């Protein structure tokens, strides 16, 4: 007793204890700082994306008193009623020009008028046409209409908002800046929520560009990924986990699948290019090809997640079912798969999230194109959200910078929703046995 007592009382032991406690503290501090660093990086990213991104859904609009002049538009008023024919030659720009000159009567000379009309977006005429199409009774009437301002006006407002009081550079002339300030002072220039951002396709003009086309393209692509890789992946996982004999060829197959999950995504793009476009001659830039290519990439992820989920189903469940006379397929279909499904779905959602954020493979199969129309089918030319971000980030116009942040924000929200769904599935179905 005395001996053990002296052992625990000795200086050497106390020094060892101090060292152990110190290393414990060091480890804890290191861990906490790592977590803090990661958290700080994440919040920095979110703050920067959100602070710029919300702007993407807003745009400057100018209020004009527009006279829908039938003569100027070349529209025949003799047949009034619901079916108003607007000829393609209808010159809505002239209508807008007239409205602007009316607003600023002191404008004289062609160049001054050109500068004035440059305040409006090139899409303003098209939106005016849409308005008339929706409300034919406006023909021959005056109406107060909000039309989109040009990118330069947007930038001017954005810069003023950000660096109020300091010097700024703008591509607008002093005359134009004065006009903008007059409009703003009269409450005829305002930043309005821009629904087009979520519905429109790509455009050369930042104020007209939207992520609608990219969203639909991404959705179609992901749908193809889901439909192709989910059943195949689950079937492969069930076979490998429940039926495959344990021999060398099975093990080789397993190693290959695991390696496949680590192959850089651009390689899958090359594969898609060679196989789907080159060999099968499928249409370029189409969601079906993008989906198939990304499915190749998602496939091993789903197999690995599904195998883990299936292996986690306790063996007594299989044994009980077999003891009742269930055939191997019945054991899998009735007992194993329903229990493994939450894990399988979690893995699938994570795989889909990865596929949704992927750019490189889509570059290889031509989904990186300037596509104005919102795709309506699996074989239409389409882009995808990350590709759209890549394209906009490459554009020189000032307004696209906000669009990039906005699109990133939307992409992050969608990925967050997918990961959140995966998390909820895990929580909901955990510890069922």
């Amino acid at each position, binding site marked *: 007793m005395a001996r053990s007592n002296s052992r625990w009382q000795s200086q050497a032991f106390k020094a060892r204890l101090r060292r152990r406690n110190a290393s414990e503290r060091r480890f804890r501090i290191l861990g906490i700082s790592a977590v803090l660093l990661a958290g700080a990086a994440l919040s920095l990213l979110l703050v920067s994306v959100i602070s710029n991104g919300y702007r993407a859904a807003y745009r400057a609009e100018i209020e004009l008193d527009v006279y829908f002049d039938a003569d100027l538009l070349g529209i025949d008023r003799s047949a009034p009623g619901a079916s108003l024919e607007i000829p393609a030659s209808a010159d809505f720009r002239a209508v807008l020009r007239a409205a602007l000159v009316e607003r600023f009567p002191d404008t004289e000379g062609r160049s001054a008028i050109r500068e004035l009309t440059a305040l409006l977006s090139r899409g303003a005429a098209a939106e005016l046409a849409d308005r008339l199409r929706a409300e034919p009774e406006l023909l021959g009437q005056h109406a107060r209409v909000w039309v989109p301002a040009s990118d330069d006006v947007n930038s001017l407002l954005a810069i003023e908002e950000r660096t109020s009081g300091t010097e700024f550079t703008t591509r607008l002339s002093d005359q134009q800046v004065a006009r903008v300030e007059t409009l703003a002072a009269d409450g005829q220039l305002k930043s309005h929520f821009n629904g087009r951002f979520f519905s429109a396709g790509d455009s050369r003009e930042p104020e007209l560009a939207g992520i609608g086309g990219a969203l639909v393209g991404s959705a179609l692509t992901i749908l193809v990924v889901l439909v192709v890789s989910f059943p195949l992946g689950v079937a492969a996982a069930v076979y490998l986990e429940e039926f495959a004999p344990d021999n060398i060829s099975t093990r080789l197959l397993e190693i290959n699948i695991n390696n496949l999950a680590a192959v850089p995504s651009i390689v899958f793009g090359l594969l898609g290019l060679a196989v789907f476009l080159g060999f099968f001659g499928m249409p370029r830039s189409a969601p079906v090809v993008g989906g198939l290519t990304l499915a190749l990439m998602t496939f091993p992820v789903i197999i690995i997640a599904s195998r883990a989920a299936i292996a986690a189903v306790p063996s007594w469940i299989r044994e009980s079912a077999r003891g*009742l*006379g269930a055939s191997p397929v019945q054991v899998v279909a009735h007992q194993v798969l329903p229990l493994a499904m939450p894990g399988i779905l979690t893995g699938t959602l994570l795989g889909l999230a990865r596929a949704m954020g992927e750019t490189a493979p889509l570059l290889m199969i031509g989904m990186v194109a300037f596509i104005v129309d919102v795709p309506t089918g699996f074989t239409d030319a389409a882009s995808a959200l990350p590709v759209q971000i890549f394209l906009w980030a490459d554009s020189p116009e000032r307004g696209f910078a906000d669009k990039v942040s906005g699109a990133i924000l939307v992409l992050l929200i969608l990925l967050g929703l997918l990961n959140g769904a995966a998390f909820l599935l895990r929580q909901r179905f955990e510890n069922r046995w």
Partner: protein
Amino acid sequence: MNHAFTHSGSASAAVGALTPEAEPPAKMSAKGVDVYYGDIHAVKNVSLDISKQDVTALIGPSGCGKSTFLRCFNRMNDDIAGCRVTGDITLDDNAITGSEMDVVELRARVGMVFQKPYPFPKSIEENVAYGPRIHGLARKGVELDEIVERSLRLAGLWDEVRDRLDSPANSLSGGQQQRLCIARALAVEPEVILMDEPCSALDPIATAKIEELIEELRGSYAIAIVTHNLQQAARVSQITAFLHLGELIEVGPTSKIFTNPANQKTDDYITGRYG
């Protein structure tokens, strides 16, 4: 509990049944069965009959191969990789090994209750209905309901769960879960029930209920039970087989095995000298 013991003691008919001339045909019969796990010879040349009227208990120290041997009767060992079974096993004089009998049919006729009282993570009703459903014994709801009720009544669980057939099976207590597993096996209407240490995970009261249930089922089903609990074997069985290191040391009427065993090893085991 003593009641069960005296009952088995009074089973002199079982003793008589063992003499060759009066022996009724065994429900199941194993002759010269060997089981190998890879290189390990787990069961060595064991021959044993499971009679229709009696409960047959398999006893022996851990690792003696009694569970492995029991699992041969419905070919559960088929599913274990590297496990090989040789010898002849018959059900009503028909061979069950090889291709002569479909394993699905065999397992429908020879049901099994496992050591751990684990029902499927589904509702009570679905647990019982699962067997009949996969075998196509009942398609319509009413028919299935009848099977569920009859099986739960047989297992002595009906009165406890009749109001909550839809609640999850794992909301039941351990003993109730094991009786549910028995009901699940009974729902397929098997001819033989194999029980692999059915009470080893249960408390004494739940164990007593299972033992009463076994007593009630005796006669309607041929029953074989593996147990490491010697008192249990004495209480519930009429025939006892003692296995040691994969060999069948002795088999006979339970009363004889427990009071006057022929083999010294059996005597040592039941008197607690090893095991």
